[in-house]
């Protein structure tokens, strides 16, 4: 008799811990063949609220890490993903992608992490500057992270899309609460396990699974979330922007209908980092 495999209980990674939804609700994930694969936590707005609290706790410390250190941690995450790429490719394949395509997606996701890891101690040099003001002042503009960023992952490229959105957000010291693809959540479940073994402090990235329809309004309205990064259809974009208006949240939304090619070189950019930075300008007199 062949051995019965031990199935993994899917848990989401929030505040450095693996949890199921506070509601205890789950929804069944089926594989491409229609067979039951796993029960996915159906996170609620309370889970989102808790994730925001976790991010708020982790944020100041993460932002204070040196850029060099943040770069190393992102690189380490790349190492983790590289080492467990087969497992991640399997998770991607649950959604129906062929083995080769899934492996390709994971490889690009690793490269994407490496790309952003390298930016950690450089973007400031490119985006900030000293300003030659017409008075005896030393005036300089630096970048700072915005704070807590809500990330809404696309359905296509469930791991590459998620990482392409997450990495530029966290590399500068922001924290993130990401909603995984509703249709293909399993790579996010696996990513949580890799995050836990990387050196990323708990709470910097919080991954939620669940129904968009339930979660998007809270992403929109939670005023402690300072910015939104995500892929959304027209209706969700409007919901997110309406909610964002109430607390002047920055919304950087990619149209779902544009069908972004996440494996393209154009899907990674210095300006994706810039989108989640504030610019701070400091003046100081020059005098003895």
């Amino acid at each position, binding site marked *: 008799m062949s051995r019965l495999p031990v199935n993994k209980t899917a848990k989401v990674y929030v505040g450095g811990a693996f949890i199921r939804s506070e509601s205890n609700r789950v929804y069944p994930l089926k594989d491409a063949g229609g067979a039951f694969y796993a029960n996915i936590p159906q996170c609620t707005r309370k889970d989102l609220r808790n994730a925001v609290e976790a991010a708020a706790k982790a944020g100041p410390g993460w932002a204070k890490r040196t850029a060099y250190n943040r770069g190393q941690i992102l690189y380490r995450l790349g190492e983790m993903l590289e080492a467990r790429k087969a497992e991640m490719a399997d998770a991607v394949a649950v959604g129906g992608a062929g083995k080769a395509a899934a492996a390709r997606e994971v490889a690009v996701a690793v490269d994407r992490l490496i790309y952003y890891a390298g930016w950690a101690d450089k973007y400031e040099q*490119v*985006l900030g*500057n000293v*300003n*030659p*003001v*017409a*008075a005896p*002042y030393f*005036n300089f*503009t630096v970048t*700072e992270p*915005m704070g807590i960023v809500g990330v809404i992952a696309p359905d296509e490229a469930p791991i590459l899309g998620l990482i392409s959105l997450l990495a530029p957000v966290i590399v500068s010291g922001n924290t993130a609460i990401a909603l995984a693809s509703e249709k293909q959540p399993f790579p996010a479940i696996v990513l949580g396990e890799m995050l836990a073994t990387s050196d990323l402090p708990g709470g910097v990235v919080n991954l939620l699974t669940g129904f968009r329809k339930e979660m998007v309004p809270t992403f929109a309205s939670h005023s402690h979330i*300072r910015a939104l990064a995500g892929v959304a259809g*027209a209706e969700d*974009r*409007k919901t997110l*922007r*309406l909610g*964002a*208006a*109430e*607390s*002047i949240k*920055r919304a950087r939304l990619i*149209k779902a209908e544009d069908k972004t090619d996440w494996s393209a070189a154009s899907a990674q*950019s*210095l*300006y994706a980092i810039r989108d989640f930075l*504030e*610019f*701070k*300008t*400091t*003046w*100081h*007199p020059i005098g003895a």
Partner: protein
Amino acid sequence: MAILTQDKRKAAGRNGRPLPELIFGDLWEFDPAPESADPKLKARYDLFVGGDFVAPKSGRYFDSVSPGNEQKLAEIALAGPADVDAAYQAARRAFEGPWGRMPGRERAKYLFRIARLLQERAREFAVAESLDGGKPIKESRDFDVPMAAAHFFYHAGWADKLEYVAPGRKVAPLGVVGQVIPWNFPLLMLAWKLAPALAMGNTVVLKPAETTSITALKLAEIIQDAGLPPGVVNFVTGAGETGAAVMNHPTPAKVAFTGSTEVGKIILRALAGTEKKLTMELGGKAANIIFDDAPIGQAVEGIINGIFFNQGHVCCAGSRLLVHEPVAEEVVAKLRQRIRVLRVGDPLDKNTDIGAINSREQLEKIRALVDSGVKEGAQLFQPLCRLPSKGWYFRPTLFTEVTQSHRIAREEIFGPVLSILTFRTVEEAVEKANNTAYGLSAGVWTDKGSRILKMSTELKAGVVWANTYNKFDPASPFGGYKESGFGREGGRQGLLDYAQLA
């Protein structure tokens, strides 16, 4: 103007002698020194659309009144939706036509021309600005107008160097841009908006604030004199409805707004279903933080400049003073002395330090908030300076014994009213400073360099003034964190907000 003191401090000092006091009286009273340059106003201003002054389709006009004496200055055209539409059509034609095709070096020359023509007519513009808006002539003359010219001059030089704005990427103009600006720095805000938009190759429809349209329409004369192609810049005048029409029109690829957070939110909601790019420069409630090792004399000047510059009608005004407890008494005493020397009155008098409140409505708002401060238990101090009998004026005001929960410590007053709070430690200062939904600016005063950099890092504000306050420059990006808005104006960062990455 005799300056009386309302300081009730009568307690005897050491040795039973009365405490020494300085007398800021009328021994040497200054004669009126009105600025006499002719502002060259027209009796009636039409809309500026497609390079021409055109009558509004509605045929309606409204009065622009001088806040200094409540006299009517001119009639201003009221733009309706059809006028706004015509302006956008003109802007689109200009973008698809000559302006869109023009090489950057030629656009640059137009902007240089505007800067020069404005410098040549600087005094005339300064007088018009003070008449229409109520700000002291010395500010419009020494700050608003020269700084507006500087913005055109700075951005002109960018127009043919745009490949350096976004390293690694090519930039392109967005197209037509809609802009709505406030009444506190009418010409300067207009320059902040126009110069980067035009340098980047966009065309513009702009609405000035209804109480301060005149210098925009005078700038339209300069735009004509500069020979700018018709439709590159269009000015539509009117109040909130006109502004809504400018913001909600389908044509602009981007809208930029400077004004209150309240109106900013309305605009954001209205545009939620569109893909328009936005920048918002909204309200503030800046903390100005004084440590005990600060250069106190200059800090006092910085506090005064921070809150009384332009009657406090400044989004980045240092309206919350946070004083380190060891020096709180000294700082407050010096502030009381200092505000006795401030001269409140006729905006056109060259010696006026605090001019007129921009509108009756704003004056009422300031009064209501000051009343709330008194009711909530804060201690009010005002010098008993005489105010002109006509016009809208408000005495410079200090509130002590203010707590974090008072309305005057939380809400933007947009007037010459300073709320004074104290703190004991660096951490407490940071917490109090950041305890607001706003995040536009902050001030820090200390002689310790490393503390300045620490504070500058911790304060959630887009501009941090260390050992100074209220400094501006076209090369220096300006804009807020949190609910003070997003996007920057000025510098390389500001330009990118008028571009798309190719």
